[in-house]
């Protein structure tokens, strides 16, 4: 019963936040809508026994990703409203129709047997730090190390982007 009430409240909040994100003219409002959705998703993680995942989700998204988004919005000064002009004919109607079809297809596919397959017998999932760490550092050790490599590549790539841009600017200044 508690789970049902939580599902209804935060489900409405998540959908409202998502629609706000798409519809808001101001990117700051879009970011706020996305934040509401992400918080609701964290609540759903908790009600699905993913306590550690929920904590990591809040730290990574609210703490890092959304801060970075708001920082970039302020940095490049697009905190002003934009007009919703559309250059491609039929893009809006066609995409909305196809999205409605896609959503219906996903919902129907969720009702099929492969998604509601037989329950495996086992202990109920309890997403504690211990359980996830046990799995992560035994069976998924190599993919885990790969994510470390990925993060280093991303950080190095970002630094390289900033660095090469600066040297190019200097060359242009010298040429002019």
């Amino acid at each position, binding site marked *: 019963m508690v*789970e*049902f009430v939580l*599902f209804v409240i935060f*489900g409405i909040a*998540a*959908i409202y936040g*998502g629609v706000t*994100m*798409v519809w808001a003219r101001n*990117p700051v409002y*879009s970011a706020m809508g996305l934040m509401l*959705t992400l918080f609701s*998703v964290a609540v*759903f*993680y908790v*009600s*699905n026994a*993913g306590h550690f*995942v929920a904590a*990591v*989700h809040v730290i*990574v*998204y609210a703490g890092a*990703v959304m801060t*970075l*988004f708001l920082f*970039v*919005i302020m*940095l*490049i000064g697009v905190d002003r409203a*934009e007009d919703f002009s*559309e250059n491609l004919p039929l*893009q*809006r109607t066609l*995409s*909305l129709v196809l*999205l409605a079809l*896609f*959503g219906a297809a996903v*919902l129907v596919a*969720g009702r099929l047997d492969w*998604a*509601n397959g037989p*329950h*495996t017998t086992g202990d109920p*999932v309890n*997403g504690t730090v211990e359980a*996830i760490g046990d*799995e*992560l550092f035994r069976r*998924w050790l190599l*993919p885990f190390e790969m*994510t470390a490599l990925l*993060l280093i*590549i*991303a*950080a190095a790539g*970002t630094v390289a*982007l900033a660095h090469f*841009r600066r040297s190019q600017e200097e060359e242009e200044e010298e040429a002019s």
Partner: protein
Amino acid sequence: MIVASWCTVTPGWYMALAAVLFVIGASGMLLRRNALVMFMSVELMLNAVNLSFVAAGRELNVIEGQVSVFFVMVVAAAEVVVGLAIIVMVFRRRSTASVDELSDLRG
């Protein structure tokens, strides 16, 4: 009795909610022309998939659902860092974040 069974939240409900969130994210990708909002839409789609992973893991009694969420989160974080850096670079050169203006590669 009927109310009690109707009020039970099965993982299918979370799957349906994840599908709705994914479609909202895809609509943001298709309808908006602001690169930043398109990026936020990608984040929303990744989160919808994460939610379905966790719900499926609980349904099937396996912890791998939550381990997958972990990996998706790392990839999303790396993607945001590089993508926002590219958007800032483009903005410094063009003074716009609209993808309509970026048509240099048009033949």
